[in-house]
């Protein structure tokens, strides 16, 4: 079965000399202005999680208003819109994108590929600091006169910059600036991730031997590099509209009886640019999640991933298709029916590769040796949530169904399931999985399970009922429902229930934070490969991996990433860098 003719002797000498690493000279260069991808990854993750907690608190405030309208006098309509906007933008861009690509990408790409570091470490460092500036500019908008913008996370003009919208004074300017800065910073990081995957792999690490995590992050980065310019252009143009009075997106507007100087601009143009970024953005978040979850499932089910090639093709196909579906966010903006037909078709076609992935995850689990530890629980939680959110996506992808539902809470439930809860499950599972490698300590399993069950059941308690609210016609984006005749009293009870569930889930995250911090000091010392995994990051000579990752010699890769439970092998896993002769001895 195994070809053993290739001994270690048969390996040709490396053509490319080992890289000269940049070595830090001081504490500041080692831990603050560090060029080591692992430190940058931690910096990215901590910053993203910190700003993510701000967004979590904002969601509480919104839920408190929806569940108990009028109880909290400081949550008036303008504040409510500001909370919505900041919650959405932070979660999508500053938390999910930054954490998956800047956090997981930086940590895992060099380690999983057997590289010493990213190919451009200095640019990589700049990327983090530019991202931090973007976060600070965004945070600053909470403290300027008028507060942050309340334009909704889509920032649709003309309302985004008119005086009726909260935060039109400074909030919107800071938001646009922050996005522009974020995109510049992301481009620096993104070029690193792509070029490292192309040029930085260890010997023997062919593309088809890369772990699916790397495939997911790589494809997502390519999408992001091509899609973020659309948001960049849109932000620059709107910034000019707001500050210099140009009319890129602003039609002629009469405001408070005054004819404004704007004329002839096209709000629809903004929508096209925004969603040309916005839809690939969904897959920028989803593809890394797909990749990571594949590896979690395979490792903790002790079984090779089912249909590896198909998984790779599906990732690439989803990436390519994601550029031709953007207008399904614009069905209600009015469009040529043939356009609607085209975009509905492409949208539904994406379900095919996505479903292939789901089948393959399930088939990987089928009759496998499933270890129900915390990373695995989160991975299974992801599959369930993702399927759930995906199914409602099939409804909403159709123009005729979308038009009546698009203004309701059904949409809120859909995208929170598919793009909120599902990726967060993967992020949490990923943190539980790789924490031992990053910190050298195990996380507490019992606290992890408490965290998982409250988060998973709680997320369903929050978002499952919201589907029903949406089908009843409860509108989204409303600060207060009032006494509309079509809204039965049970809606209010359900809203209060959802709010309480949201508070509980939010507080459960404190268990997680406590676990992270407590384990860092008091956790059980982690062995170098606690999950008995095959991928290269678990085969480093030191744990946590030292500067340069690999000690004296770079690893050489002999096999794919999923040799679990191979018949005839001594152990139930064979690391990727294990030479063939050794296994059979």
């Amino acid at each position: 079965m195994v070809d053993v003719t290739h001994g270690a002797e048969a390996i040709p000498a490396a053509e490319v000399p080992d890289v000269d690493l940049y070595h830090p000279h001081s504490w500041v260069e080692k831990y603050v202005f560090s060029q080591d991808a692992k430190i940058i990854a931690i910096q990215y993750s901590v910053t993203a999680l910190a700003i993510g907690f701000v967004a979590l608190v904002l969601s509480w405030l919104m839920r408190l208003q929806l569940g108990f309208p009028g109880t909290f006098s400081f949550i008036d309509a303008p504040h409510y819109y500001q909370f919505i906007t900041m919650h959405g933008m932070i979660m999508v861009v500053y938390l999910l994108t930054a954490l998956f690509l800047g956090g997981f990408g930086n940590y895992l790409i060099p380690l999983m590929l057997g590289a010493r570091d990213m190919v451009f470490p200095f640019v990589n460092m700049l990327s983090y600091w530019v991202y931090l500036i973007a976060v600070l500019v965004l945070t600053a908008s909470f403290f300027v006169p008028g507060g942050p913008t309340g334009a909704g996370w889509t920032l649709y003009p003309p309302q985004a910059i008119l005086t009726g919208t909260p935060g039109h004074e400074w909030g919107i300017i800071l938001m646009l600036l922050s996005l522009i800065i974020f995109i510049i910073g992301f481009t620096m990081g993104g070029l690193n991730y792509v070029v490292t995957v192309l040029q930085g792999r260890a010997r023997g690490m062919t593309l088809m031997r890369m772990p699916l995590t790397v495939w997911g992050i790589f494809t997502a980065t390519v999408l992001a590099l091509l899609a973020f310019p659309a948001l960049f252009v849109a932000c620059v143009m709107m910034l000019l509209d707001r500050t210099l009075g140009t009319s890129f997106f602003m039609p002629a507007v009469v405001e408070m009886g005054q004819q404004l100087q704007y004329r002839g601009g096209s709000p629809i143009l903004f929508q096209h640019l925004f969603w040309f970024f916005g839809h690939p953005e969904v897959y920028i978040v989803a593809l890394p999640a797909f990749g990571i979850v594949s590896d979690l499932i395979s490792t903790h089910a002790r079984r090779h991933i089912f249909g590896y090639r198909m998984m790779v093709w599906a990732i690439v196909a989803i990436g390519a298709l994601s550029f031709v579906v953007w207008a399904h966010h614009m069905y209600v903006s009015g469009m040529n029916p043939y356009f609607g037909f085209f975009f509905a078709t492409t949208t539904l076609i994406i379900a095919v590769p996505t479903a292939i992935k789901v089948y393959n995850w399930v088939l990987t689990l089928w009759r496998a040796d499933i270890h129900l530890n915390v990373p695995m629980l989160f991975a299974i939680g992801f599959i369930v949530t993702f399927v759930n959110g995906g199914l409602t996506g099939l409804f909403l992808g159709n123009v005729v169904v979308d038009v009546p539902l698009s203004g309701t809470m059904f949409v809120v439930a859909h995208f929170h399931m598919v793009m909120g809860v599902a990726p967060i499950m993967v992020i949490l599972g990923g943190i539980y999985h790789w924490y031992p490698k990053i910190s050298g300590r195990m996380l507490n399993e019992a606290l992890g399970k408490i965290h998982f069950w409250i988060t998973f059941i709680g997320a369903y308690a929050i978002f499952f009922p919201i589907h029903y609210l949406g089908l009843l016609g409860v509108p989204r984006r409303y600060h207060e429902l009032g006494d509309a005749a079509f809204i039965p009293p049970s809606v209010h009870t359900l809203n209060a229930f959802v709010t309480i569930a949201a508070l509980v889930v939010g507080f459960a995250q404190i268990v997680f934070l406590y676990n992270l911090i407590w384990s860092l000091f008091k956790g059980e010392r982690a062995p170098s490969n606690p999950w008995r995994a095959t991928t290269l990051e678990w085969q480093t000579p030191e744990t946590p991996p030292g500067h340069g990752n690999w000690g004296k010699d770079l690893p050489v890769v002999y096999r794919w990433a999923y040799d679990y439970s191979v018949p005839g092998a001594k152990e139930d896993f064979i690391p990727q860098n294990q030479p063939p002769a050794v296994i059979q001895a």
Partner: protein
Amino acid sequence: MTVTMVFFVAIVSIALWWLLQQNLMAKPWLQEGASAGDRGAGTLPFPAAKVGLWAFLAVVSSLFALLIGAYLMRMGFADWRSLQLPRLLWLNTGALFAASVALQGAQVAARRREIDAVRARLLAGGIFGLAFAAGQLWAWRELTAAGDLVATNPANSFFYLITGLHGLHVFGGLVALGAIADKAWRSFVVDDVRLSVEMCATYWHFLLVMWVILYALLMGGADDLGAICRQLIG
């Protein structure tokens, strides 16, 4: 948005075409052992820095493709009135072309290991590049003096936006060129700067090509040829 879509179809096709060369049909679970041909030289036969530059140029192209798409969409509206471009832009185009030629010369000289020629041609490239940047600013001044401000009409807004964004990339090119020239002056071994000079030349060629496309587009709004083109592609 047709132009934008064509661009994205092209770039996605290139990516897929490249992927198809990468043995995607391999069955990694059957293929064990190190392959004798694999010596860890990366997927593409170029240094990482060059691959990074090309990836960056793809990102910048995407930016301008979207901008061009937006411009053509706006041009299609009934109230479009095009801007009379300053004649100075022809001169600027010449300067940018000269910069590109000079840097191509520097690249050739670097291959022949003639350090003096590299220095002289980098200097010439820098001067022509600066002339282009100054000329662009002067064109802005001419326009503002004539009362064509950024918000006066949509064509003006797009003109300033497009030339401004292109100008920012030129500025970045000048900074890089300055750093490389500095290195060339301090180093006596051509091979130390050869890669940098080659990349610098590539970037400035890109700036030239992008400018020619943008200039043609900005001019195209002014005459019937533009209208025909718009009908064809819009």
